[in-house]
């Protein structure tokens, strides 16, 4: 029975082999052939091997870290159909993998590392061990590495990886740089050129990206006026995402083009009745509420908040003029110095994000906190529920272009009446000055500088900056790299800081 089953399976799956190997069929064939023909065809010809259509990657499965790497490999290869991934127990070192196109073999090193159960940003995934001479394999490694950086959202590495490659175009260079948080003058000018020169041919997603990023860097600048008007025109004719239409409305609000702002907002609402509630830009909602376009309770609260934040910005400036403020950064450079008591002797102390004020860190960094400067993304900064603060200062967000900021601010109002934002103008100036999104620390120190003049060095602790790579941040309480999404340019920040802090 087994034999019949096996033969039948062979007939179905490989009829050629079945005929070749079948005694019965062979007998029939041989009967019909002349003896001469039989002698000539005695040996099966040695036929060439078919080339496999796929590239293959072999990686080792050996332990926890490799499970994370394997899962990442699988994610990276999802969009690359020409690669087959083989996972197994192989004679390879834990950081080695093999790539093959069938004809050539390439031994590669997995250089990405795992930190806190996450693949760390800042490096490629694969690097060939020897000088690879196989163009095909080289292309595959390139594709895998690009996919790796995109998977991690590591646009910083992607930008530096791509910028000198021959296939890099102005469009891709500008896109990757903006995504990476590289906002130098060169990139701003290139982006403006790209977007104006290619307005008609750029993909809508790219147009949205350029506008969103340029608005982040330049604010409601006249350089963006023409682009915003073109986009408004396109929105009147074409289908655009509701969130983008609302962002354009927010831009027009900030630019003082209230009619256009209301028109865009209405356009968004016509596509989605919840467009306003789901895209809450404080300035825009205040405009809509004050022009009676909306009268719901949440809009009223947001409008109140808009006015309160504007007023509190002013209040903080008065406070800063009248009080000496000691600023404690989260850099690890104070560890072991036992200056906690000295720090706490200051009248007014400002700390950042989820600064830890618990023993044993109090020994070096103190405990007292009057002002908390924070990023409202709780992924990166714990929800700070301290009472009795003089101010909470939101470092990342503004009255006009920050979406849904009010939700977090209403939450924080439970703990502190005095919440304010870092002035929009200061953020824009500083961003352009250092060519990157500035850190909370630098923004706050710059604000103090604008209010008080040169910041006294004795009032600053925990600002190391020098030991941090681009895109990385370190914290005294964690000891390892944290905030993998940060894209601050520490080198530029250090240079700028030296100009605002007294010698």
């Amino acid at each position: 029975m087994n034999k019949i089953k096996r033969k039948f399976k062979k007939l179905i799956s490989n009829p050629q082999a079945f005929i070749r190997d079948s005694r019965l069929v062979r007998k029939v064939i041989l009967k019909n052939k002349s003896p001469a023909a039989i002698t000539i065809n005695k040996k099966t010809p040695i036929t060439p091997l078919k080339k496999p259509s796929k590239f293959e990657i072999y990686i080792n499965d050996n332990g926890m870290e490799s499970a994370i790497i394997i899962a990442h490999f699988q994610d990276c290869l999802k969009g690359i159909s020409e690669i087959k991934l083989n996972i197994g127990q192989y004679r390879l070192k834990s950081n080695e993998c093999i790539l093959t196109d069938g004809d050539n073999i390439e031994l590669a090193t997995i250089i990405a590392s795992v930190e806190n159960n996450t693949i760390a940003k800042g490096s490629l995934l694969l690097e060939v061990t020897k000088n690879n001479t196989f163009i095909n394999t080289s292309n595959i490694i390139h594709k895998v590495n690009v996919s790796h950086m995109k998977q991690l959202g590591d646009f910083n590495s992607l930008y530096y990886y791509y910028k000198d490659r021959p296939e890099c175009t102005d469009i891709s260079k500008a896109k990757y740089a903006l995504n990476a948080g590289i906002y130098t003058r060169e990139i701003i000018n290139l982006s403006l050129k790209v977007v104006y020169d290619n307005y008609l041919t750029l993909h809508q997603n790219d147009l949205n990206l350029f506008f969103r990023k340029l608005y982040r860097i330049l604010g409601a600048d006249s350089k963006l006026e023409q682009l915003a008007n073109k986009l408004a025109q396109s929105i009147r004719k074409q289908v655009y995402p509701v969130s983008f239409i609302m962002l354009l409305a927010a831009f027009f609000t900030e630019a003082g083009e209230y009619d256009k702002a209301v028109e865009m907002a209405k356009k968004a609402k016509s596509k989605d009745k919840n467009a306003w509630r789901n895209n809450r830009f404080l300035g825009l909602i205040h405009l809509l509420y004050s022009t009676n376009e909306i009268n719901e309770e949440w809009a009223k609260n947001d409008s109140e908040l808009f006015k309160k934040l504007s007023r509190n910005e002013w209040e903080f400036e008065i406070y800063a003029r009248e009080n000496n403020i000691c600023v404690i950064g989260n850099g690890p450079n104070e560890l072991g110095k036992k200056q906690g008591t000295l720090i706490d002797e200051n009248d007014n102390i400002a700390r950042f994000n989820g600064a830890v004020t618990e023993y044993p860190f109090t020994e070096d960094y103190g405990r007292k906190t009057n002002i908390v400067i924070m990023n409202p993304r709780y992924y990166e900064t714990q929800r700070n529920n301290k009472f009795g603060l003089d101010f909470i200062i939101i470092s990342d967000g503004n009255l006009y272009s920050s979406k849904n900021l009010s939700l977090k601010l209403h939450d924080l109002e439970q703990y502190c009446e005095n919440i304010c934002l870092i002035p929009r103008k200061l953020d824009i100036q500083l961003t352009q000055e250092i060519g990157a999104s500035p850190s909370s620390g630098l923004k706050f120190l710059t604000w103090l500088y604008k209010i008080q003049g040169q910041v006294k060095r004795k009032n600053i602790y925990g600002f190391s900056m020098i030991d941090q790579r681009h895109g990385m941040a370190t914290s005294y309480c964690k000891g390892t790299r944290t905030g993998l999404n940060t894209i601050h340019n520490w080198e530029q920040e250090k240079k700028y800081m030296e100009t605002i802090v007294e010698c």
Partner: protein
Amino acid sequence: MLEIDIIIPFRDAVDHLNNICSCLNRQTSNNFTVYFISDHSTDGSIELLKSLDLKFKHTILESLSSGPGAARNTGIENSCGDYICFIDADDKISDDYIEKFSFVATYEQPDIIECMFKAINTDSDVVSKTNLASYISCEDRFDSLISGAVPRLSWGKAYRREHLLRNNARFPDDIYNGEDHIFLLLAYNKTPRVSLIFDFMYFWVRHPNSLTNRTPTEKNIFDFIAVSEAKYKIFTERLNSQDIDDEAHHKNKITFSRRLFKEARSLKNDIIKNSDQHSSLIEALKMKLLASETLSEPMDIIKNDSTSYWSDVIH
């Protein structure tokens, strides 16, 4: 750098020696000595070798016994380098063959170094090649050789001389088919340290008239039984020395027996396809298998096995 000895056995290879000598002349490293071992050649091969302009150290010797295995053994006994490589006279190697083997030998000093191969026909089309997954598999190489997961080929490798001597790894005399199997089982028996080179550096040229491609005769059957018996002895000795439970013990024996009968079936099919006297040869194969006392246990296993091997070979 450690010294590499290359052993090239040949018999009446006057048509091929020129090619392999060109390959050796082109080597990027001269850190090797070649031992040409003639298996009683009569076609002028030795004279040809003497007349060639060879740019490498070499010695020409006559085999002490007959068969390709015996010629290789003669090479092992007469060479003195740190590592030994076997190359067939009608095959080809890459220009950096010695350089790469020498590098791994010097810096890793494993017991055996392996490289990848491509089998090519006379038109240089690739007809088969190293199966990468099996090549890099962590499975014990001895077990892979028994199950047939890796090919039983003595070339494309470099063996540390000391390792071969310690394990008394030699080729059987007067066997023309499957002599590599015995040598490899002995060489891989004591879990040697193996290093891999990830490159296709050995090119097995499949000539229509090569030893492995000839019409089967009674000698093939004799060789098959002799090699199978020798393999079974090495296999059972190793199995009995291992500290494994009865189930694993039995499982290993089933693997061996199935492989043995799979090979017997291939030989039978080869005879049917390519021999004019297939009835008598098939009968001889059956009789010799049934008469082998050494192979009685694997035969009992297959007789009661769920596979069709028994009926395919014996009936």
